[in-house]
């Protein structure tokens, strides 16, 4: 009788399509279709009677070596590529904001290729980023539509591929404070506000000449930079504040001779894609209350006045600084479905980004005090993941490794064991937040915030605190009492001292 053992075949390594090869597909598509990317004309008098704000068209030359790759919330894929054109447009106001600078160099100009949801094509738009001060000057890597720096101020202006104004977003300190679309002057002839009406063109003027022998003498060309600003007789930005809409569609302003049947044109048509509001790099919370708490925590707040020497232990702003200092803004906070009962979760590093997700269910019931605690707790996780990655603070990495040996194959326990050393700092962050922004003005007594800082420091899969944490429980208190405080705040029940966030 023969006995045969079945030895499973090793899994074949999977081959993933690289970003570069995906970008090559976009480039091929663009080269094949760029002459067709025009909106239909309205009629023979289009240019003179159109109510649209249209800039002169110029050839788009993407720099395919520089691109960002991301997805809109609805799943459409986006490749945002640097535009290396000699022509740049910017508001005249930038000449005042940066009197001693070459304003052209401060404008980031990209072309966004947005995948069509059903057809095999991309609908491009042009994105221009205008900073409003020295603190908002960014390079290509530092700003893009899905990654506006969390403290950026300026305008993100979107144009169709054939240079019709689509929409503009005004940012102040990382928040969208309004959006606008250009509309025709009012019938009363009101003067237009100046915006988007300067053009700086760089030209090369050849100095070559033919000598007496008929030979062309090559001489270095003269580079001429010319700036033209219209300033008057332009258009008034219309539209208003951030109205919370998820997506914005391109709308052609009404025209004198509408409706006009558009002349026949080649297939496929160019349709400017609908766009979500640009996202800040860090704060992507759509729950307004949670968003406010995050912004307040990140500003830092008043030092403790009743416990001298501990005020500087507010660890939250410093932890965010670590992400900012790296220059890559690899921290995100959002809300959604965490897939568990927990109020928050922190992802591994994916495509360079650590994402914290606050549970929507949790945000519906929790007090603002609980949410602030959760944001602090998850940010410590993100901070520890970051430290392990960049390995600049070897003390922290070595501590992580030592706890890992005690809790092998269990990163939650490893992190929470090390987090026991941050309990005081987390409590200070929470107290400082409540003192300046929170519901009780810091009136609960430091002991309450300290106990809240123990939230989540449990043995993985249990309701039992880790050994490292047990030693820190204040004398006279019990884990049961701490657990009750956390539950009260997380559910916003009548025993909670905080206020519900919804």
């Amino acid at each position: 009788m023969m006995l045969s053992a079945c030895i499973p075949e090793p899994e074949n390594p999977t081959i993933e399509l690289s970003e570069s090869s995906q970008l090559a597909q976009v480039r091929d598509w663009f080269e094949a279709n760029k002459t067709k990317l025009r909106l239909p004309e309205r009629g023979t008098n289009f240019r003179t009677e159109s109510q649209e704000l249209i800039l002169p068209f110029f050839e788009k030359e993407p720099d395919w070596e520089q691109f960002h790759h991301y997805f809109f919330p609805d799943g459409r894929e986006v490749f945002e590529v640097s535009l290396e054109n000699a022509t740049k447009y910017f508001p005249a106001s930038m000449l005042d904001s940066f009197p001693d600078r070459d304003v052209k160099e401060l404008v980031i100009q990209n072309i966004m290729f947005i995948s069509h949801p059903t057809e095999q094509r991309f609908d491009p738009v042009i994105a221009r980023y205008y900073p409003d001060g020295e603190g908002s000057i960014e390079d290509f890597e530092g700003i893009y539509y899905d990654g506006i720096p969390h403290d950026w101020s300026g305008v993100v202006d979107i144009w169709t591929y054939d240079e019709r104004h689509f929409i503009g977003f005004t940012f102040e300190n990382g928040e969208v404070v309004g959006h606008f679309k250009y509309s025709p002057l009012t019938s009363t002839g009101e003067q237009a506000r100046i915006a988007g009406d300067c053009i700086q063109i760089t030209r090369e003027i050849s100095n070559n000449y033919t000598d007496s022998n008929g030979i062309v003498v090559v001489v270095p060309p003269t580079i001429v930079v010319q700036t033209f600003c219209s300033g008057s007789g332009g258009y008034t930005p219309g539209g208003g504040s951030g109205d919370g809409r998820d997506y914005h569609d391109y709308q052609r302003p009404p025209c004198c001779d509408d409706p006009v049947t558009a002349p026949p044109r080649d297939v496929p048509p160019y349709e400017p894609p609908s766009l979500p509001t640009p996202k800040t790099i860090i704060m992507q919370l759509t729950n307004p209350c949670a968003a406010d708490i995050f912004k307040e925590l990140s500003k830092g707040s008043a030092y403790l006045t009743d416990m001298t020497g501990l005020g500087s232990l507010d660890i939250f702003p410093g932890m965010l600084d670590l992400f900012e200092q790296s220059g890559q803004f690899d921290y995100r906070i959002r809300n959604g479905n965490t897939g568990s009962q927990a109020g928050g979760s922190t992802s591994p590093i994916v495509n360079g980004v650590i994402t914290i997700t606050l549970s929507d269910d949790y945000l519906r019931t929790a007090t603002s005090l609980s949410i602030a605690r959760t944001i602090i707790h998850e940010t410590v996780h993100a901070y520890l993941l970051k430290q392990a990655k960049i390995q600049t603070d070897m003390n922290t990495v070595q501590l992580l490794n030592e706890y890992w040996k005690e809790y092998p194959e269990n990163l939650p326990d490893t992190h929470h064991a090390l987090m026991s050393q941050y309990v005081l700092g987390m409590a200070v962050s929470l107290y400082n937040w409540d003192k300046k922004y929170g519901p009780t003005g810091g009136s609960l007594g430091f002991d309450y915030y300290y106990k809240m800082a123990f939230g989540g420091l449990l043995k993985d899969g249990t309701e039992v605190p880790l050994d490292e944490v047990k030693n820190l429980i204040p004398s006279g208190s019990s884990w049961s009492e701490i657990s009750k405080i956390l539950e009260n705040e997380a559910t916003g029940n009548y025993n909670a001292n905080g206020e519900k966030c919804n």
Partner: protein
Amino acid sequence: MEKSVIKICLFFVFLLIFQNESFGQRKAELTEEQYNVLENTYRKAKEKTIDVYYHTIPFESWMQSLWNEDNYSDMGVGFCSFKEPDIKLAFSELKKQVFDLEEKEIYWKKLSDKIKTSKRKKRSKVSFLSEPIIIGDYSFVFSRSVDQKSVHVLKKDTLGKWKYECGVPLEFELH
């Protein structure tokens, strides 16, 4: 009668032959040194016992994520620092050898009471381990459990003893 006896004898002869010839189909065994590595992987663990599946796992595609840009850099990977060039070289070599991982039996008798083998795949706390891959003075063990994946790295000291060097968490859930 004689014919029956002959047939029975022949049957047993063939059985013996095939048992010997099926030697090549028996799983290869872990070496003594590999058992030393496994033992020292959990020496400092707080848990009183560690449950591991009684077979090692062969190559699985998630193991390659060790070298992903999200995890691996010139400075190190996980909690492992590349200050010493030898460890970085070992990781480079590991990238090729990981494909050679085979399924082998882990004999509980060759391990201390701390590590218990289990034949039940679905036990929630069971860890599925690869056989240790030994490269120079370093050894690597890939580990998979229900919600986490990681790599253990051990280093042989000057006395030839395996000591836990560093860990590399690859997949996990943090709350």
